[in-house]
């Protein structure tokens, strides 16, 4: 049905001549599996990806890509494509019945390469990831379905079914990215528990040419005149596609509600008789908030929807999965390259499970506000909305989805000293800032990540790089434009770290702050670097 996008069809891979043993196998070429494969390949790891289909996401599914995700794709070399094709927005408006109750601005701060959000159909993101994976040497095997999994102490043995036949593949490491219905998870008998919400939603992606009369903002209605008693969400995507999300209630019949005869009148009631539109993609869904108890099971590691699922309110599903990949890829690469002990991998659970719980908490609370169950919940929800129109104090209580925020690994065992008070603390993703490089506009984050780096707020110190642990890159940032340093001409880089002159920040390959030092003492830096890699071996009990 989609009129603006034709799914590419990738040629199925031939089957190997004999049983194979591969170091890293990614199960599932969705948003998360592809991101993980690309990150690993860029870190020099050979990866095989298996997918039971031969194309990218059918229908757009995820449309809101958050700033942190965009920064991760920036690090992986795809950021410019998201900015170019995607729709940038930062204002959300909430309506109650026929009037506006509340509006919010997501990124009031200037001086970041990436905006708070870009809207883009998931299939474009996946298509670009496929291209980038190929360029990075990832072996993609389309139409290769994992039909059986036997976990072992030294990896997992897979039975793979392909169009040309079946074969056995031994993986030293299996990265399970096979989505919410994960076959790998189910066949390992791992409980996936949480809450089911008794409600149904209709997604209608519609193409509207010309002036629609809606700005590029996120509009959310509670109990609007055109869809009484329920909620509606409207969002713009590229290619003149608009996402409309109608709450239907638990009693709605999903098959019936998907029929164009049912969908078209709903959309028309909302847009008005005079606005011509075409249906692009229609889907009815229910949702859950649940997760695996642990994401690492020996040599099998779960990421993305296979590990956790949230409601779509807040755009936390895909954005969380991309952060899983960001967190795990460098750790596995370091372990495989003998630069860190295997225990480093346990910090993936230690860091991503609290992040998941935060996503589940936010998504659950939003869901309770949007679809109040019971008379009291409904009365409080409506009371908040009634007050919000006129009273500022009630506006922050309005919850139409708390949009994805970057995860902060506060208290992670990988974190070293804080060095000074305030600014971006250990565990937080390094904040971006505009800088000048040899006089040309540039961004701080472009110089961080991929490897460990030491960000030094001062002019280049020629003896420092040689005194750093192997693989740690020195990045000098000063306020005078000294040759060899990035020029923090607006003073924002230093301000966002609240760094003293001469202060230094150790930054992990995933751009998260590991440790800070008021003065860059090589011995202290080496100890923090060790802690961010190997220190994990002493601190984390399996």
């Amino acid at each position: 049905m989609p009129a603006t996008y034709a799914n590419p069809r990738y040629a199925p891979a031939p089957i190997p001549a004999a049983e194979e043993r591969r170091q890293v196998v990614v199960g599932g070429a969705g948003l998360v599996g592809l991101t993980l494969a690309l990150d690993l390949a860029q870190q020099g790891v050979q990866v095989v990806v298996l997918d039971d289909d031969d194309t990218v996401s059918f229908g757009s599914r995820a449309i809101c890509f958050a700033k942190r995700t965009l920064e991760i794709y920036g690090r992986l070399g795809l950021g410019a494509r998201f900015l170019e094709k995607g729709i940038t927005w930062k204002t959300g408006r909430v309506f109650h019945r026929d009037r506006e109750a509340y509006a919010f601005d997501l990124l009031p701060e200037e001086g970041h390469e990436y905006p708070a959000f870009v809207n883009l159909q998931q299939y474009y993101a996946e298509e670009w990831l496929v291209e980038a994976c190929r360029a990075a040497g990832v072996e993609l095997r389309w139409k290769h379905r994992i039909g059986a999994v036997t976990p072992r102490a030294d990896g997992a043995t897979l039975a793979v079914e392909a169009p040309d036949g079946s074969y056995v593949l031994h993986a030293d490491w299996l990265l399970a990215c096979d989505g919410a219905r994960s076959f790998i998870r189910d066949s390992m008998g791992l409980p996936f528990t949480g809450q089911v919400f008794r409600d149904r939603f209709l997604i209608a992606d519609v193409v509207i040419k010309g002036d629609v009369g809606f700005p590029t903002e996120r509009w959310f209605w509670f109990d609007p005149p055109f869809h009484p008693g329920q909620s509606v969400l409207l969002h713009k995507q590229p290619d003149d596609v608009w996402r409309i999300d109608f709450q239907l209630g638990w009693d709605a019949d999903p098959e019936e509600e998907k029929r164009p005869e049912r969908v078209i009148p709903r959309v028309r009631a909302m847009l008005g008789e005079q606005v011509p539109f075409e249906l692009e993609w229609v889907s009815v869904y229910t949702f859950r908030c649940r997760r695996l108890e642990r994401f690492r099971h020996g040599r099998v590691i779960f990421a993305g929807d296979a590990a956790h699922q949230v409601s779509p309110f807040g755009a936390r599903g895909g954005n969380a999965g991309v952060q899983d990949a960001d967190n795990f890829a460098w750790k596995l690469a370091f372990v495989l390259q003998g630069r860190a002990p295997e225990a480093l991998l346990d910090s993936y659970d230690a860091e991503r499970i609290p992040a998941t719980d935060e996503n589940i908490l936010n998504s659950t609370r939003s869901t309770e506000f949007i679809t109040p169950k019971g008379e009291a919940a409904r009365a409080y929800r409506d009371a908040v909305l009634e007050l919000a129109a006129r009273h500022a104090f009630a506006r922050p209580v309005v919850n139409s989805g708390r949009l994805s925020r970057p995860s902060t690994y506060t208290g992670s065992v990988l974190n070293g000293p804080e060095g000074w008070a305030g600014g971006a603390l250990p565990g937080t993703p390094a904040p971006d800032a505009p800088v000048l490089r040899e006089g040309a506009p540039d961004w701080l984050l472009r110089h961080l990540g991929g490897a460990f780096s030491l960000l030094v707020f001062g002019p280049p110190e020629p003896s420092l790089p040689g005194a750093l642990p192997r693989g740690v890159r020195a990045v000098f940032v000063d306020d005078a434009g000294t040759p060899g340093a990035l020029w923090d001409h607006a003073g924002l880089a230093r301000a966002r770290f609240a760094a003293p002159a001469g202060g230094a920040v150790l930054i992990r390959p995933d751009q998260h702050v590991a440790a800070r030092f008021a003065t860059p003492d090589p011995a202290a830096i080496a100890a923090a670097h060790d802690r961010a890699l190997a220190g994990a071996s002493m601190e984390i009990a399996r």
Partner: protein
Amino acid sequence: MTLDTRPRLADPDALFALLVEAHRGLDAEASRRLDARLVLVLANHIGDMDTLRQAIALAREAG
């Protein structure tokens, strides 16, 4: 903050009358919503989650 449960109202009869008066003419649903709005206004005025938790616990126990 500790929830203050000492008698603090100078004119308790007036408070009772005020509450009854506020609900006059409202049906059950409208009354429920008025109470909800009132709780939200007062909760914001108190502005302290800890005190509010104690208040909610006290109210539940008393019922």
